[in-house]
Every structure is written in structure tokens, then in C-alpha cells.
């Protein structure tokens, strides 16, 4: 599998180039910020009619990762839906697809700021989840350790002789991992932003998603 393996809280974890986190020992696949139903919410709120294919695309990529890893547990780290109304707007096909993915495995929805409530879809619903030694929650808690979270949609830029690429990325240090947004219609917040720099230790590493994962020291704003 196309991934970057690293050690965190004494565990061997793999940052998949798709943006999902794979915990091989426990067969747990974690994804964050799917933002399903984004195009519907945009249409409802602003009148822009974006190509309505992002649910299909996000689910397809999630499907691929689940099939390739053979995950026993799937954790969606919050903001799985762009808002609660977007859950209702999901097409029948999309609902069936999610149900099919849920069959035969444990499925956990963590609450996010966009989807602060349970949905009618299967799976169990949590504010945060503890799977020792790890804790899974949507927004990082600055005092926590061994924590896996999402929310910030981190992205980072790598430069090399006249080339530059900005991509969504994982961030990790001794205390936490922040996952990139997995949803197709999601943007990113630069790792150089203050909110992220405050959370991450100086030795933090960024793993860029893309054709192959690329690890670099986490870029910070020049001070």
C-alpha cells in the first residue's frame, strides 16, 4: 500500500497517500472531514451549482481504502457531513453505499462542528473515542497526548529546484496527529498558520498526500 509508516505513542501507524490513517495492528482505518453533501449545502446557501459528484467521489476513495486495507473498524473523525441538512439530502444510492461499507465492520462517527448530532445512518456516534493508547476526537485539545484529530484540513508546500507543490497533509509530533481532510470538496489551511503552529511542536513533521506521500519538517511561518 502506498503509505508512509511512522511510530506514534509506541504504535506503528501508516499515513496513506489518500489521506487516511491506517493502524495495522488493530485494523483501524481513520478518515477525517469527509464533508459529504457539500455541493448541496453550497447550492442551498449561496446559489452556486457545483458539480454534484463529490459524495460519489469521496465514497469511492473511502471504499478503495477500506477494500485495500480490509479494515475491521472505520472511524470518521467528524465533519463527515457538511451540515445536518446535508445528511437528509444524500441520495438513496449514497445511503446504500454507506450501509454497504458498514456491513461486517465497526463504524464510528465522531461529532464535528459541522455535524454536531447523530445521523440516521448506521454506526455508533461519539463525541470522542478512546482506544488505548489513542484518543480520537474532531478538534485537537492542546493538553492531550496520543491524540488523533482532524478539523484543520492542514496543507503544506514542498519546494524543489523551480518546482513547488501544495497538498493536504498529515501533521504529527510526540503528542498528536492531525489528519488532512479526506472529502473531495475540501480546501486546506496552511501549516504555517498560527492556529496550527500553536498546536504543533517544533519537531513536527508534515506528510503530504498525493501520488506518493512526501514527509518534510512541518513548514512554519517565519518569525
Amino acid at each position, binding site marked *: 500500500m502506498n503509505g508512509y509508516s511512522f511510530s506514534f505513542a509506541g504504535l506503528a501507524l501508516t499515513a496513506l497517500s489518500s489521506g487516511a490513517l491506517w493502524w495495522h495492528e488493530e485494523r483501524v482505518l481513520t478518515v477525517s472531514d469527509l464533508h459529504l453533501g457539500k455541493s448541496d449545502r453550497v*447550492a442551498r446557501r449561496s446559489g452556486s451549482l457545483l458539480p454534484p459528484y*463529490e459524495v*460519489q467521489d469521496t465514497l469511492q476513495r473511502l471504499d478503495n481504502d477500506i477494500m485495500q486495507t480490509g479494515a475491521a473498524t472505520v472511524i470518521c473523525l467528524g465533519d463527515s457531513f457538511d451540515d445536518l441538512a446535508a445528511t437528509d439530502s444524500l441520495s438513496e444510492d449514497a445511503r446504500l453505499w454507506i450501509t454497504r461499507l458498514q456491513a461486517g465492520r465497526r463504524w464510528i462517527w465522531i461529532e464535528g462542528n459541522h455535524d454536531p448530532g447523530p445521523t440516521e445512518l448506521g454506526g455508533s456516534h461519539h463525541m470522542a473515542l478512546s482506544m488505548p493508547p489513542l484518543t480520537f476526537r474532531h478538534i485537537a485539545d492542546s493538553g492531550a497526548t496520543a491524540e488523533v484529530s482532524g478539523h484543520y484540513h492542514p496543507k503544506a508546500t514542498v*519546494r524543489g*529546484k523551480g*518546482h513547488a507543490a501544495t497538498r493536504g497533509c498529515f501533521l504529527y509530533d510526540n503528542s498528536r496527529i492531525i489528519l488532512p481532510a479526506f472529502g*473531495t470538496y475540501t480546501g486546506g489551511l496552511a501549516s504555517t498558520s498560527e492556529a496550527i503552529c500553536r498546536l504543533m511542536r517544533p519537531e513536527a513533521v508534515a506528510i503530504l498526500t498525493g501520488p506518493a506521500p512526501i514527509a518534510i519538517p512541518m513548514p512554519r511561518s517565519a518569525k
Partner: protein
Amino acid sequence: MAQISAPFSAWFARRGWTIHPHQQAMVDLADAPALLLIAPTGGGKTLAGFLPTLSELAGSGHKGLHTLYISPLKALAADIRRNLSTPISEIGLAIRVEDRTGDTSQTQKKRQRADPPDILLTTPESLALLLSYEDAPRMFAGLQRLVVDEIHALAESKRGDQLMLCLARLQSICPHMRRVGLSATVENPRAIAQFLAKHPDSCEILHADPGPDPDISMLETDDYPPWSGGGAKYSIPAVLEEVARHKTTLIFHNTRAQAEIFFHNLWQANTENLPIGIHHGSLDREQRQRVEAAMVRGELRAIVCTGSLDLGIDWGDVDLVIQIGAPKNVKRLVQRIGRANHRYNAPSKALLVPANRFEVVECVAALQAVKAHDLDGDPRGRGPRDVLCQHIMIAACSGPFDESALYREVVTAGNFADLTRAEFDDCLNFVATGGYALRAYDRWQRLQKRSDGLWQLRDPRLAQKVRMNIGTIQDTDTLKVRLKNRMGGQPLGEVEEAFAATLTPGDTFVIGGQVVRYENLREMTVEVSAAPGRKPKFAVFAGTKFATSTQLSARILRMLQQERWPDLPTHTTDWLSLQRDVSRLPQQDRILVESFPHDGRPHLCIYGFAGRNAMQTLGLLVTQRMEELQLHPLGFVATDYAVLIWGLDPVADASNLLQPGVLRDSFQTWLGGNAVMKRTFRASATIAGLIDRKSPQGKKSGRQTMFSSDILYDTLLKYDPEHLMLRITREEAMKGLVDFGRIEEMLDRTAGRIDHVKTDRVTPFAAPLLLEVSKVPINGMATERLLAEEAEALMAVAGLS
């Protein structure tokens, strides 16, 4: 025959002027429904456009808006208001003239809608905005004349396409409105006339006396032009001498980067401290205005500039134009030369400076074309449908509309005359529902059909959003550049985001004529410090690269076939003769291909003479084909004339690579994933209203919810490849940077006649290409590898690996 009335003749007489024949003719033909005046710069074109209005207004008690004047430049509108106020006040006419642009205050704008002036001066975008209001019919009621200034420039862009749709709308509101176009010298006045007139009506064309031929020649220099490159540094001493010898000189460049470097070098040699300024579109607005003001006051001896000075206000005493680098396009050259000497009936003086040896040939060819009055230009083609989509949305904002009536109105615009009903319906469907194969937005449609059959906005609040997104000018993603200091720092100008992304702290580049050092990026602003005396590491920030026109390329090819070249300097004829001996000289109806080893690698040079953009595309297509044939191409470099490719394996038979069918097939595959397509998509999707124009606020907040339009492109391509937006994107890309049209033209004229010359060393024509800097590495995986290597190095330095 209409006479110009007594007060005007008296005013002309008082000023010691006589009315030009074409100004009189404009008055004589004032009743024509459509009238196009072709006049050189300085020919009193604008006054000619307004004389009939002034006469009509002087005599009658007209109420409301009489004449609407449209100019491509805001500055021009303000300038004309000042110029018109002179005769109006001196003759004592009670005529109200006002301008309306993005800079006009809200109060003033509101008043103009309630109580319009006699003459309103505005831009295409402001007109589109006015037409989006429900009260547009009231405001424009009684409009008599519409004057489009610099129509030759507008006709080349989507701004003009939008304007013509607006004119169709206006004409429905005011059936008696007469249209007047004012144009600089163009190759095909008939095309502009058709563009201007209501289709299928005819349009009168008036030609002003073009004045004496320009005094144009090559600049004599002590040093020879170099073999390659675009800096023309060798010419600096000679250019400075000319500046010293003339009152005011405009020094035109084809790109901003070249203007910057030249300006930098010019000042290094400017020991006499002649006051010389720089002016181009990436400079901070305040800086540009300072230069313009100094120019008007006559304080500058020279301005280094780009196309930003092609149009616009009268620059006073310019007595010399210098064109650095091959002009690429004869028409633009003629218009630029016209910037020198705005006194009518005095020849404009211009000097051409080739930047390299090949450009010597091109400059001489251009010089001959100017003398022969042989102008070039590519037909503009059909009105683009992204602009139509915006127009439909604007129509909906102004009130409910009938689709058939709107279609009939749209096809009265010359550029949309052959739009089919099905094509129109596609656009309407896109605007209303998004036009997706998957119907997803039944509840959120933007337009709804009412029970009476009219279309209206589903949510009237949408109108506000549409108005904020009006216009077709592309905002490239640029970042402001500021000097870094405690006070916030002086703004210097802008660079493209993509360029800024490649900078690392300590890198030096040139902007506003000074060398600066990149410090950091703060809140979407590039902070730099002055680094005088440092050698700039990067000089290039991308700007438009013009391609040599089809007609000029043909003239160059004809010239190369001459027996001898009495018009060319010896250093150039020696080079051409050597090429003829060693290989062949390229011909109009054949493609010359050369193979030779260099540096231990086989090289292939294809002389297609199809212009830079098309040659770049050809390079991409041929190397893709070579990849398939396992010939292991490594990279290529393209110029206006040729593409030079190197790789691991020699090419035995070039005709294999240049088969039209093969090229067209690879083109289709290649097009999908190309960066040019994504850029074109973003532009078209913004115009068509699929995505919002980036607001300055939105950009600054850097919210993580904003996502790139590339994602929308990729998603559409994957799930809805025949969607209207993708079809529009393909059409637009073919015309623009991809320029496959020119490859088709090359294939047509050469019809498979290929001369493949194999030599044992670099040929004289290919040698300069080896020195070109902008080389393109071949495949995406090479980039991945570079980035991975860079990442490893970074991790090692940080002790993290």
C-alpha cells in the same frame, strides 16, 4: 448634409484649428445606424466621435441620456470627460458630462441612475452592471448614440464579446440608438464593422487620412545581438544615446519580466542620470499613477513599458518609440509606433531592436510589412459561451425574460450571429440548473420557469451575488509585494502566486526596477527587503508571451528563401548562408527536421514556425509520442520558430512523429490532464458563474473551506466529461495558450512534406535553441522525484530522518 453648427466653427476658428475631413464626415453620416471610423493615433478620433453629439445637443432640448461612451480604460473615460469639458464650457453649452467606473462614488452612481447626464462615459463592465438593474429601461430611454472607443482592442477580448451582448440589450430598449465605433488602424475593418453593427445590418466605414508613413528603422548598435535570449542588453548604450537625443522616448517590451530586467540594466548604465521610469501592469497602482503624472508633466525622458501603454491617454511629447525584441505582430507594432508623435501629419519615429540573431530576421520582416501596410491578425471567432452564460444571468437579474425573445436578441450581436438555438438552450440550462447529467438541484435551481413561461431568479437575493461577479477580466492569482519594515512597507507591485510559491527566503528577484530579497509570506503579501547591487537570481515572473503571428511567420519563411539578403546585416546573412550549406533553410510548405548528436545525446529540431504557444504544444505532443515509442525523451525547448527535443534514443523517421492523425489523437489524450486546461477552466467557470470571483476579503481570510477550482475540473472530467463547462474550456484552450489551431495550420500548409536532415553536429539554426533558458522537463514523475529528493534533504537537515 448636416453642417457643423456656427458656434463650433467659431470655436475651431478661435483655436486656430480646422476641422479634419473625417471629423466633418462623421457629422455628415451622423444618422447612420452603425458607423466605424478608422483613424491613426492622434487623428482627433475621439472628438470626431463626439462632434455629432455636441451638435445635436446644442440645437435641441434633449432630456435624459443622449450619448453613451464606452472605453476599455477607466482612465480614458476620466480623461475624455476633462477634454470634453473644454469645448462645452468655452462654447457655453448646457451639456452635462459624467463618467462612471468602478471608482465612482456610490452616491454619484445612484444619482446617475435616477437622473442620467446627457453624456455618460463608462466601461463595458459598468454598462453590464447598469443593465442588470430593473430600472435599466428607464435610465436608457431616449438614448440616441453609443460610441465605442478603441473598439479594435475590445474586439480582441471577451470584454468586447460581453459589450456586444450588452449593445443587443440596449438596442432592444432603445430601437433608435445609433452605434459608432472608433478604431486604430486594423487589418480587417470589415470584421470590426460586423462586430459593431446590429446583425445583419450593414455598417458604414470611414477611413481617416492615415497620415505619412512612419519613419521606422533598425537601431544601429556597436555590438552584435546575441545568439539567444530576450534581454537585448547589448543595445543599452545605443538606446541611452537615442533617449538623450530625443525629448521623450517610449521603450516597449513584450513581457513584464523583460521590461524589468532592461530597466534594471538601463539604470546601471545611466551615468547621466536621465530621468527614466517604468510602467507595466504588475506594478502597484500608485506607482503607475506617479509615473503617468510625471510623464504628463514632461518630467521623464523615457519610460520602459509593456502593453500597459498600448492604449490610453495622450502622452504629450513622445517623439520616439523603441521596440525591444521582435514585435511578433505587425498590427500591434504599427499601433505602438503611433504612440510617438501625436501631432497629426507628422511621421512617427520608431526604432526596432532585435534581442537575438533570429529576431534580426523577424524585425526586418516586420519592417517590410509595415512599409507594405501588410497588417496581420487572426479572426476572432465565435462569441464564447461562458460570456453568454453570464449575460443570461444578468438578464435574469433585470427581470423575468422570455427565452425565445432573449435568443432572438442575442443573435443580433455580430459575434453571436451564428449561435444555434440548441447552443443557447445549453447555456440557459446551465445557468438554470447547473446542466449536469446527474440532476441534483431541482430544489435549488437558480432560474425557474413561471407559469406564464417567463424565466426568473428563484431567489431574488441571488442578483446581488451576480452583480459582484460581473465582467470577463481574469484575475490571475497574484500576491502583493511589499518592502518589509515596521511601518508596513512600501507596496512595489504584484507577482503571480505560482511564482511566489517557488521562492525560498534569500532568493532575489527584480520588481519595479529594483533587486529585492524574498523574506517571507505574511497574510498573502510577499515581504521583501531591498538588495541593491545583488545579482537577481530570478528575473522571470511569468507574463503573457506573445506568439509571432501567422502572417509575420509566413513573411519570415519567404525571406529565408531569398537568394541573397541585402536588407540584413552581414553577421546575420553569414549565419543564414551557413545554415543553407550545412542543412537547409526552412520553407513555407515543408517542415524541416534536423537530427544531430550534442553532448552525447541525440537531438531533434522541428522547424514548424507556428508561434511560441503552438510550438510548445507540439513539443509536448511529440515527446508524448516519443515516450510511447520508447525513445526516452528527456526535455525540450520551444521558440516561435522551432522546438528542440533531446532524449536517450535517436529518432530514425520524423514523419512518424508528425502525422496529423497521431498528433490529433495524442492531443485529445493530453489535453485532459493539462495545467493550461485547468487555468482556462477557472477563467471560463468564473465568467459563466460556476465559481465566484475571488473577493479580496475571501482571499485574506484563508478559510479552509475554500477549495481550488482544479478539484471541480477533475471531478467534472471524471463524472461528466461532456458537461457544457468542459466543452467551453476545450474551445477556449484551443484558441488560447494551447493554440492547436496553429498546429493545424502548419499541418495544412506542409501536407506531410517533411525534410529530415541528419548531421553529425549542431546546425547553425539549432545552436541558439541550446542556449534558451525556459526548458521543459518531460514527465510528471520527474517532478515527483525532484520533490521527494528535496524532502529527504530537508528531513536530513532537520535531523528528522
